[in-house]
């Protein structure tokens, strides 16, 4: 046997011994396990490693012996590499286990201050929900002025000067500007939009409105969403259907709505919209004054006088309009108690609320 082979045999057995002992020790080395394997690799298979040095000597082996010796060395090298590879895998496993077994974090520690959470106002959230729904129905969103000329807020809406209907809405007037008011409803949009567009019309317009009113259930500023549909053959039944559909989208399909006759000068027939009480579900409670219903908006078939004030043919076209209190709907959806608290400027107020109201989760 060639002398080199003998040495190779010896070295091989030394290597496998070292490898075996490293193997048993690996689990104790923990996080340093793969470093230990790497050390072993460099010692034996590195450029200056024991096995590499043997290959250097192969150059001086006689031609006849070279194939046999070479083959033996190659086998040895391959075996060693395989062993190292195995060790490496074991080492990684050992390292992973060691890492996982380190002291775990107290995951119950809070991160409140660093999360920098912001929030939308409940009225904004409800407004966005409403617009989402109406856009799905194919409605266009409009915006309009909050400080409005008398004509758009009243006269064009069939509320002439000196008409008792003007008392229905306590109006803010501007000093030294006779014809200007803070709009009392979003219905001014009806006039603006119909003057601009030709039928068919289907639009919604959310916005702030103002009335001289300030107590626990009234705020001088509140929010409405106006909806207008004008086309040939639009009926009261269509209005009922649409109101029912969108209220169900907001509050859940089990909630009923009802319309009862009322008076708004710009619609005829006109109605108040009641939603089944969200607190007692119609059984009667304090919030709904034992009626089982909550007043939530007004609606009606657009008055022919209004069509005529925007030069629409009131014989050819019919339409409906409704206006809902966004604040009221937000209060019901998130079960908020005091309307005026919403406008005090408290940031924490918005933060308490989940983006989707709990009642939606039910439906």
């Amino acid at each position, binding site marked *: 046997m060639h002398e080199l082979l003998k040495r190779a045999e010896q070295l091989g057995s030394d290597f496998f011994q070292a490898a075996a002992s490293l193997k048993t020790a690996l689990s104790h080395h923990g996080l340093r396990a793969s470093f230990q394997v790497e050390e072993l690799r460099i010692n034996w298979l590195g450029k200056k490693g024991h096995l590499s040095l043997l290959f250097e000597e192969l150059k001086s082996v006689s031609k006849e012996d070279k194939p046999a010796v070479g083959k033996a060395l190659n086998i040895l090298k391959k075996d060693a590499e395989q062993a190292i590879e195995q060790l490496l895998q074991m080492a990684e496993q050992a390292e992973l286990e060691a890492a996982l077994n380190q002291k775990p974090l107290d995951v119950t520690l809070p991160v409140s*201050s660093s999360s*920098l*959470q*912001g*929030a*939308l106002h409940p009225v*904004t959230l409800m407004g966005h929900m409403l617009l989402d729904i109406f856009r799905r129905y*194919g409605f*266009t*969103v*409009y*915006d309009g*002025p*909050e*400080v409005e*000329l*008398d*004509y*758009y807020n009243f006269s064009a809406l069939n509320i002439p000067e*000196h*008409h*008792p*209907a003007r008392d229905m809405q306590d109006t803010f007037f*501007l000093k*030294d*500007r006779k*014809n*200007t008011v*803070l709009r009392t409803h979003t219905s001014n949009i009806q006039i*603006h*939009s119909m*003057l601009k567009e030709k039928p*068919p019309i289907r639009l919604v317009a959310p916005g702030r409105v103002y009335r*001289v009113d300030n107590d626990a259930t009234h705020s*001088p*500023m509140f929010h409405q969403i106006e909806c207008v*549909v004008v086309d040939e053959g639009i009926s*009261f*039944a*269509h209005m*009922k*259907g649409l109101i029912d559909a969108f209220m169900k989208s907001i509050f859940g399909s089990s909630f009923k709505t009802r*319309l*009862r*006759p*009322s*008076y708004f000068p710009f619609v*005829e*027939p*006109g*109605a*108040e919209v009641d939603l089944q009480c969200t607190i007692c579900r119609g059984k009667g409670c304090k919030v709904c004054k034992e009626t089982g219903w909550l007043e939530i908006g007004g609606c009606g078939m657009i*008055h022919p006088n209004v069509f005529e004030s925007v030069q629409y043919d009131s014989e050819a076209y*019919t339409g409906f309009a409704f206006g809902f209190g966004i604040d009221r709907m937000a209060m019901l959806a998130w079960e908020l108690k005091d309307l005026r608290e*919403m406008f005090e*400027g*408290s*940031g*924490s107020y*918005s933060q308490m609320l989940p983006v989707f109201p709990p009642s939606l989760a039910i439906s």
Partner: protein
Amino acid sequence: MRLSLSWLSDYLDLSGYEPSHIAELFTSLGLEVEECLSLPSIDEKVLVGEIIAIEPHPKADSLQVCQVNTGKEEPLTIVCGARNPRKGMKTAVATIGSVLPGGLTIQATELRGQRSEGMLCSADELGICEGQEGILELEDSCTAGVPLKQYIDTKDTVLTLSVTPNRADCLSYLGLARDLGAKIGRPLNYPSVKGIKEKASFKTKDFLGIRLASSVGCARFVGSLIKGVAVTPAPLWMQRRLHLAGMRSKNLIVDITNYLMLESGQPMHAYDARAIQGGWIGVREANKSETLQTLDGTLRQLQPSDLLIHDAEQPLGLAGVMGGAYSEIKEDTKDIFIEVAQFDPVQVRKTSKRLALRSEASMRFERGVDISQIPFVCHRAQFLLYQSLRHAGLDEELAIGDLLDAYPREKTRSRIALRLKRVRRILGLPHINLDTCIKHLMALGFELADKTEERMLFDAPLWRHDIIREVDLIEEIGRLEGFDKIPSELPRMVIQPNHEHMMISFGEKLSQCLATCGLSEVKTYPFHNLDWYKTLGLTEQHLLWPKIELANPLSEQMGHLRTSCVPDLLQAALHNRSKGGYSRGCRLFTITRGFFDPKQAAGFDQGLHLTQKAQGEKERIIEKKWFAGILDTPFMEKDWLRAAEPVSFFHGKALVEKIGGFFGLKNLSYKKPQAEQHPFLHPGASAVISYGPEELGFIGLLHPKVAKDFGFKKDLPLIFEMDMDLFHKASLDQKKAGTRAPARFPAVIRDFAFTLPQKVLYGEFKAALDAFPQRKHLWDAAIFDVYEGSSIAEGMKSFAISTSFRHSERTLTDKEVDQEVQDLTCWLEMQVSAVLRA
């Protein structure tokens, strides 16, 4: 309107209907029932008693000891403090164990040593009516010992109805009975005037005439002189009914006028005939500088638009609003003149509004009365007066005059055509038929003048001022049919492209972006205090000085409309501090409008009004949309990870950049603001934010003096405010500028330190860098350190810059980068004297 159901049943048979059902029916008719109050009967143990003897209390001057027969063998001994008990009087006795409406249980007591076995009660204490002095005086025909409730039953239900302004007719029992009757299919029972016409014993015109000035706002004036009346209290049942309606009883005459106003909806007035001078009474408009003392004792300054009732000498009353003090019914009044008239709604409304005299009468005249029933109502007054005085045995001198009726032009009923097709189409009731329509309208008092298969002609009753067009009839049919009978259907609609204003969805995204950036939204009133703006250091000349003032603000401190959200946010931050949130800081934002005079702020017009149709369009207030925020210290509260972090200018700037970045707006520039434009900002820690030449807004710490004056005791909050419209426009412009394709090959990173003069701002350095003419592969540059100190020469500072170089199609070689770096450093040295540090 308060409605007693027992009273209502005088005019409509309500048998078989529970009060709660009646309330539901009214609500379903559009007469919303707001409250439903049930009233109990008087306790069974309250009996009719007869006072058979009275003695003064031995120990108390103000008390009397009465012996009261309550039908038992032994009379009861009852101590009474009232002044009016007298021997032989029949009154109400609350016997021991009875419970009074206030919850008081009557027990046997001793009053100053005298045993008392019950209580003699007033009408007040029994809950019959208010304001009556002394114990209840019953008619002699009542039998002692019988429970009082057999004579006076207080059991009732009172509904409070909300009557909309179009339904003048429903401000009356008859009107409400008619509507309910139409719904339940029962006829209306008109109240009686039986035999009263025959009782007229003289002609009123022999004593008094009526003179209506032509073209004056009185379409009908009916009057009657009645002589020899007695001004006594009204009968108890009438007082009771007025009490349930929320009215105070005064005397028989005045009570009858109020009672009939409630019954018929027609206000009326009674004058002391002595006060009418010159033999006639009339209606005219007031003269300038004329005055009148009204019933409430106030001297009113009149104007030519006011309608007056007057005689030959002087004004007697404000027509339809309030009578005059001089001609009112007095205790010794013997002869009265009753006026029942119609007055012009607009004139009554103007006067009552101007004088802030909104009475039950003026409300009914404003909405319109039923001109056709006026003589009937006058007869009713005569009838009730006659009945009451006769019942009380006070009719000896009574003499009733006939009716004078000044009705120059008889009002005709309007005739309205109704098409069945239209009814079906508007209501969405495809099967409703002609007969149903006719049935409903006839029940409401409409008369069918003509009909064909397709069309009907109706004459509207004169009490329905709200019925003008076909659609008004359709509403009546819908109302009586019931809105619940109308099906729910979704409209079929054509798909149609929408052209929504871009600002709308921009606003929605912006609010979401601000919330995602850690700010909480607040919504605040636009009613601002001028003092806030003074505190901000603004003057009248400043664009942000509020110029729009409310004529009727909630308070003087809420008198002006907002121009800027800065005061709102400062108030909100203070609110958060005061609510114990100080140590936690707050980060708030708002998106809202500022209101400007068009003369000053023409450039602010944001085109919110879609059309220009009305008068005064040029003077329209300009509404500018702002978005604004405030960061109050600490930016981050202390926690277990780190110490509290105070708010700095750069927190705000980071925020603005983040919002800008969200909308693709990267090249915002920051310049030191001018003190006169932004006097409320800290001059050393604030900036005006621009995009190109356009100023979008500002950002900065609040000026320490302003902060102190506003009430921030320590630490300066940071505020920013941006013009939403300009910001939106800038973001659109930015998108046109195009975007850079993502990098595909690795960058070469080179870090440098430059020494440069202290006065050179980073912005200038960056501008030079961006303008680098030999730029080929320079991809990005970021500053990562700013240093001034001992290792650098006086007056100099150091910027440490990290740069990256890239090629879009391959990896760069060091050589290529070296060349570009050399060019770059030369350029920077030339431009901003930035020297590469060794």
